[in-house]
């Protein structure tokens, strides 16, 4: 279970307050979708959750333990997948899986087992001896996903997991996300595709201008805003909170 309390991030370089106040909770065995317009602070929040960035203030806990207590132990338990993540092109998926498996101090037999299972699922097995750089975008994304999940993490953070992928690969990844949920994993995904949220997510958090403005069940999102669809609810939340910010700035 992940708990985020009053998370704040100000970049020192340009003094930009990317995240002002985000609080949310994600339980094991659920898919939590993080929604927000461009520049709302979703990616920064995801980066702080994945240990890539240090929060300016606030607290992140994994199963009640502060993230800063043992950073390396947290990293062993999480996986973070974004479109920006690539693997070394000179290596084959097989070599990459062996390398990352060993880096996560996995047993050789466990690496072999997980590798075979993931490669089989994502259709990489027959290409496992080919260099990663020769793959198509979809195949690269599938390989990255397989490598990220190799160490069997408890928490998986996806930043736009299906962006730029064909419909077949999208479906394959969606199915796998549901499978991970059934295995009791804690899944956070950030996306712009509201359809994907309604199909996959159990709960949703909406961030506007660096603040969490909603956190609750996906099914309750529309009714909580007195609208009929989650698209309308999202727009309403954005307009209300963004306008509010503009008024605060004016004042």
């Amino acid at each position, binding site marked *: 279970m992940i708990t985020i309390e009053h998370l704040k991030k100000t970049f020192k370089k340009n003094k930009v307050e990317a995240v002002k106040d985000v609080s949310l909770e994600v339980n094991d065995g659920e898919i939590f979708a993080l929604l927000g317009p461009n520049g709302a602070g979703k990616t920064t929040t995801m980066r702080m959750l*994945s240990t890539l*960035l240090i929060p300016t203030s606030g607290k992140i806990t994994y199963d009640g333990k502060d993230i800063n207590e043992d950073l*390396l132990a947290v*990293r062993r338990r999480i996986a*973070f997948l974004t479109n920006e*993540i690539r693997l*070394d092109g*000179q*290596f084959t998926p097989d070599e990459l899986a062996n*390398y990352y498996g060993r880096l996560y101090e996995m047993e050789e037999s466990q690496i072999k087992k997980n590798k075979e299972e993931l490669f089989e699922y994502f259709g990489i097995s027959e290409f496992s001896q080919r260099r990663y750089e020769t793959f198509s975008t979809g195949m690269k994304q599938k390989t990255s996903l397989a490598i990220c999940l190799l160490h069997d993490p408890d928490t998986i953070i996806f930043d736009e997991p299906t962006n730029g992928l064909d419909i077949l690969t999208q479906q394959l990844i969606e199915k796998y996300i549901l499978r991970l949920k059934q295995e009791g994993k804690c899944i956070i995904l950030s996306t712009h595709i509201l359809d994907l949220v309604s199909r996959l997510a159990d709960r949703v958090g909406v961030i506007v201008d660096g603040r969490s403005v909603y956190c609750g069940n996906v099914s309750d999102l529309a009714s909580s805003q007195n609208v009929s669809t989650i698209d309308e609810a999202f727009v309403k939340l954005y307009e209300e909170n963004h306008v509010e910010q503009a008024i605060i700035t004016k004042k």
Partner: protein
Amino acid sequence: MHGLRLIFQHEIAKIFKDKSMIFGFFVLPILSLMITVGISVIRPTTTQAEEYTLYFYGINMDRLNIGELDEKQIYVVSVTEEPAVFMQSESFHKYDVLVDFSDLHNVNIYYHEEDTISSYLKSTADSFVREIYSELFRGRHPDISFRKVVAEDLNKKEDDNRLIAMLLPYMLILPLTANISNFASDSIAGEKQRGTFYQALLSPVSPLSLIMGKIWSVSLISLFSSGIYIGLDVLGSKLCEANGWEDVFGFAGIKVSTAEFLLILLYALLLCYLFSNLGILISLFCKNANQAQIAQLPVTLACTMAAMLAMFRFGTSPILHYLIPVYNICIVFQDVLHSRVKLANMMMVAISLFVMAFVLLAITLLSYRSEKVTE
């Protein structure tokens, strides 16, 4: 250690899996060797001596021509410096001969036994001394005795290693800085550009292991690559020597003991480590390999300048020079090749290098968690 070893192996494998590396590592040095040998073949062979000299100490006489050898004139010249001092000077070349006439009954002739010209000139000096001895004293002192003294090996060795001592800092530092700049830029800034650095940042490996794994892989691969260049230069020298071409590589006649070679290797490794750490530190703050290479240019230029300054250094250096980074390693190389290593100087360099290495590593580790690195 587990993480460090894995990252080190992965980095090395990554470099060797890159096809362009085969060109950089093997084809380019061989091409460079072929071009240099070509220059050596087409250049006319010249010897360094324009004339041969028999130096006389303890007797005053005008410069005198006493014959010729291989179309070069042999001169007799008086010197006033003590033989021990004169033999250490630049004027006393390996084929020259020094006759110590200070004791009229025991004349010492200093020469280099291994040099055929010097041995020949020694016989000429011997005859000449007998001739002037009888002329000067007209039979009044017939009990002259000759002591043929072989000039010290130290002097001979210094002479053999003179060229390489001058060239080595430059020959080593130029490929080293170029290689390290290339590998270090690619190691982190290049990875950021390709998007592969995040995976390393997210892995449960301590920053120390990650940074050290990268530094050591860059260090050793750069040293190996520079070693190939120098190894081929040694081969080139042997080729020139065997075929009677002029040696443009500077390795002909080099005399380096195993201990001296290991000492040079150790300091070269320390130098590599420092360069690599600096390269990695710069690379951490750059967004792509190109930017990192440009940022490293001043370092490369400063190191090349230091090596060039060391090339034109003669004699011994003040102890404070052993504190100047890079320059101090260059002069250590020269001291080793000239067999004038002093423990105090070596310690001074070693301590300054370790302090620099520690400070650089600390800065690198502090920078590792900077937003500039992870953004």
